Structures are given as C-alpha cells and as structure tokens.
C-alpha cells in the first residue's frame, strides 16, 4: 500500500472513494433513465421525481418499521412502491404519448414532475426528513493511513457492481431484455412477430423507474430527504446519459464515473468551485464526442 501513496496522497485516495460512492447513486438512477430513453425514446424528466419519491418512501418505511429491518425493507419496498407509481402513470398517461415529438414529451414529463413534486409536498410535507444509517453500517472503516471512510459508503460501493451485473443479465440474457433491444431499433417489426410492444414498453418503463426508486432509497441515509432533490438529480442524470451515449447503459456507467470522480476530486483542486468540474467534463466530452462516449441506440 505504501507504494501507492508515493503517487496519491491518502487524502486524494479517500476522495476517489467518496466519488465512487456518489458514482453508484448516479449510475443507478442514470441507467434507468437511459434504459427508458433507449427503448421507449422518452426523455423522462419525471425520473427525478421517482428518485425523490423513492427517498421519501424509504423514510416512511424506516420510521414505521424502525431499526435495521426498516432499512432493508425500505431498500426493497421503496423501489417496488416507485415501480407501482410508474406503472400507474405509464398505463394511465405515457402509453398514449409514445408517438409524440420529443419536445412534447419533455414538456409533458416536466409537467408531471411538477405535479408529483406537489403531491410529495401534500403527502410528506415541506420539512427536511432524515433517514438513519442502519446500525450495521454505522461508523467508519479506517482506510489509507487511517483516514476514516464511512461504512455505509462501502455498502454503496458494493451495491454498484451488483446493480450493474443484474442489469447486464437482464438486458443480455433474459427474453424481455432481448425484446427491448430489438424494440429500441424497430418497434413496428417487434409487433409484427407477435409481441405486444405496449406491454414490453410498460415493463421496461417500470424497470427503469424501479432503478430511480432504488437510487432514492440508497441515497436517503446519506442526505437530507427534501423537496427539490428531484430537480438537481435529473439534470445530472441527463448529462450523464448524454455524455455516455443515449440509451447505452454502459455509457451511463462511464458517464456516472466521470461525473462522480470529477465532482469529488474537483473539491480538492479548487474547493470553492468544485461543483463546476463535472460540468466542465461534460463540455470536454461533448466537444470531442458529440454523440457521447459509447454507441447511442438512437
């Protein structure tokens, strides 16, 4: 380990780890957004609201059930709850709008996000909510010459690859994944081989939104759960998806890595302007690769 320190100080290394745990949240949310963008061609601004709803649902489940059991239940229950909300909106509204122009879809999903923002305010109120870090993940792990690293962030670092592998399996090894790859390119032909494309879209939409809910539930113990967390995240998620290549899940992973790491390392370089670095990274990437780093499905 001492060998590494000659290149990177413990401070830098621990910032890298902080950036990676941020990457995990960004990846989980952005991959869902990208999946929906790639297959359904909907630029879903509503995705941010679902992330926020996931965090609020996690708060409710944690405070009702309590303890570590509450956290684990929230981790499963909040994404499922978000999935149900998304299923209702997809069947009730979105399914009638797939053929519309993208600008209409952006306006529409933005409007829905405002409506749901207010619904969240009615249901949960405008105060900040906090979700406790579960007992098992409390405290710090000494890393890199004794610098403390939050145990919960270690859990996040574990969850990232788990979700990535699960997504890879879903897209490449399951029937619904293969169908959605085909539907992303030629939805008419998918219908003409006997597949009910409408339900494929509903399923993909719910899976994508489930990921938004999971991101919300995972982030809840690390932030104050509040109104407005939807808007800041949806902008970041869109930038990540654009940077990675529209509809490409691995692009979302790459984009989230760049975004998370430039954010955490930027703070070291220029603390007052740390927040600018990820956006600079987006500009640089798009200057050289206007269609994103990896192949877009559009």
């Amino acid at each position, binding site marked *: 380990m001492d060998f590494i320190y000659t290149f990177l100080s413990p401070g830098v290394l621990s910032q890298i780890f902080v950036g990676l745990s941020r990457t995990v949240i960004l990846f989980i949310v952005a991959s869902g957004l990208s999946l929906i963008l790639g297959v359904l061609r909907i630029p879903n601004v509503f995705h941010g609201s679902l992330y926020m709803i996931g965090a609020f649902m996690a708060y409710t489940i944690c405070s009702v059930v309590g303890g570590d059991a509450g956290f684990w239940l929230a981790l499963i229950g909040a994404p499922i709850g978000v999935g149900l909300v998304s299923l209702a909106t997809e069947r009730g509204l979105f399914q009638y709008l797939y053929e519309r122009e993208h600008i209409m879809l952006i306006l529409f999903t933005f409007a829905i996000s405002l409506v749901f923002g207010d619904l969240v305010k009615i249901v949960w109120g405008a105060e900040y909510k906090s979700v406790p870090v579960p007992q098992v993940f409390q405290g710090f792990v000494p890393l890199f010459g004794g610098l403390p690293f939050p145990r919960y962030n270690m859990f996040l670092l574990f969850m990232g690859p788990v979700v990535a592998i699960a997504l890879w399996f879903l897209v490449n090894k399951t029937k619904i994944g293969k169908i959605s790859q085909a539907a992303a390119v*030629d939805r008419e032909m998918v219908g003409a*081989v*006997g597949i009910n494309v409408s339900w494929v879209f509903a399923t993909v939409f719910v899976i994508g939104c489930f990921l938004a809910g999971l991101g919300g539930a995972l982030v809840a113990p690390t932030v104050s759960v509040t109104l407005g967390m939807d808007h800041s995240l949806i902008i970041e998620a869109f930038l990540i998806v654009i940077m990675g290549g529209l509809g490409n899940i691995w692009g979302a992973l790459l984009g989230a890595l760049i975004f998370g790491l430039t954010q955490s390392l930027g703070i070291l370089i220029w603390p007052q302007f740390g927040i600018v670095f990820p956006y600079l990274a987006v500009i640089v990437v798009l200057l050289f690769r206007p269609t994103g780093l990896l192949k877009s499905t559009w």
Partner: protein
Amino acid sequence: MLDVKGIHTYYGLSHILFGVNLTVSKGEVVGLLGRNGAGKSTTMRSIMGLTPPKEGTITFNNEDITGKKPYLLVRDGIGYVPDDRRVFADLSVDDNLEIAFKRTTEWTKERVYGVFPPLADIKARRAGNLSGGEQQMLTIARALMSSPDLLLLDEPTEGLAPLIVRSLEEQILKLKDAGISILLSEQNVRSALRMITRAYVIDEGIIRFEGTVAELEANEDVKKKYLMV
C-alpha cells in the same frame, strides 16, 4: 382463408391503394406481381395492420381483421416477412428466432433450422453482420416461429444473387408443402412463376389482372404493360 375486399390505403394524404380485391385459399401460393411502387408492399402492410386501410374489409378465417393490431394478427396465424428484411440487427440469429411469438409448437427452432440449414451454422452470429441472403432467410425463419397458417412474403428475392434466389425458391416451396398458404409479392416475375399457382397483377394501386399462371403466361398485353417481360 384470406379475403381482401375493396381496400383503400393512404400514407398520410397520398392515396396508394384504390379498391384492391384479392383472395388466398388454403394451401395456395398466390403471387402479387407488379413494378416498383405499384402498391405491393402497401397491400402487404394493409393486410398486416401496419398501415390499416381507410375503406374496405379484410377477413381472415371468417373473422373481420380490418384494423386489428399486427401482434394480434400474428396470434391469429399470419406471418409477415417485410421487403426490407429488418432483422433485429443487435441480436444473434438464434435470439431473433427466440423472441418471436410462438402460437403453437408446430414450428420449433430445430424444424426451422431444418428448412434453412445455413442458419444453423451461424446461430451465434449478430444478425446485423449477415449477408443479404442470410438475412432474408432469417426473416422468413423468424416469421415461421409463430407457426403461421398464412405467410405474407414481400419481395423475398429482391437484391439477391441468382444462385441464392434459386435456393430461396426451393425453401419457399418447402413451406408450401408444409401446408402454409402464401401471398408472395414479387417484381421478379420469372422467379415468382416458379412458385405460384395464381397471380394478381397490380399497378398504380389497382389490380389490373387476376388469373392462373397459364392465363398470365398467355396474356402478352398484361405482361408487356405492367410487368415489362
């Protein structure tokens, strides 16, 4: 089995088909012949529900299927092979067959590979990387997976080398022997005549001739005017 009566189809505002009538009986291979842009593909798309007609009716097995959704028509027993191939390029050959809807177990992957042996050798290859002939075989194979009673084959030989056209003809005749009724649209009249028993000639969205192959062969006027042979 298939009865198309007086259909008028539009793309947006442009009127493409003008009262097209045609029938396909069980076990028949019927040709829909005509030049490029005559309305062959539009007729196929109208039957398949991809571009539903504004007027007229289409009945299949005594059920009115006008305006019915394409995926439901597949489940009723109609298979569709589009003229521009449209394989699922990102999926493997095997997955192209795998994801198609299976109505009955009459046609399995093994049986389909039996009709198109070359496909069996390239199962794992990405469909987008296949040659034109291989892609054409794959689209027919994919349509077979739903065990159709009626197959709509839209210009299967278009853009293929003569040798490949020959082997494709044999494979299509095998499907006829398997009891599948076929509506075959073709520009390549010589090739079509080797497969069909009856023909319709379409031009500018109107059926100009219908009759048996022998009648068509004898009608120099129709051949010269609409088919350029």
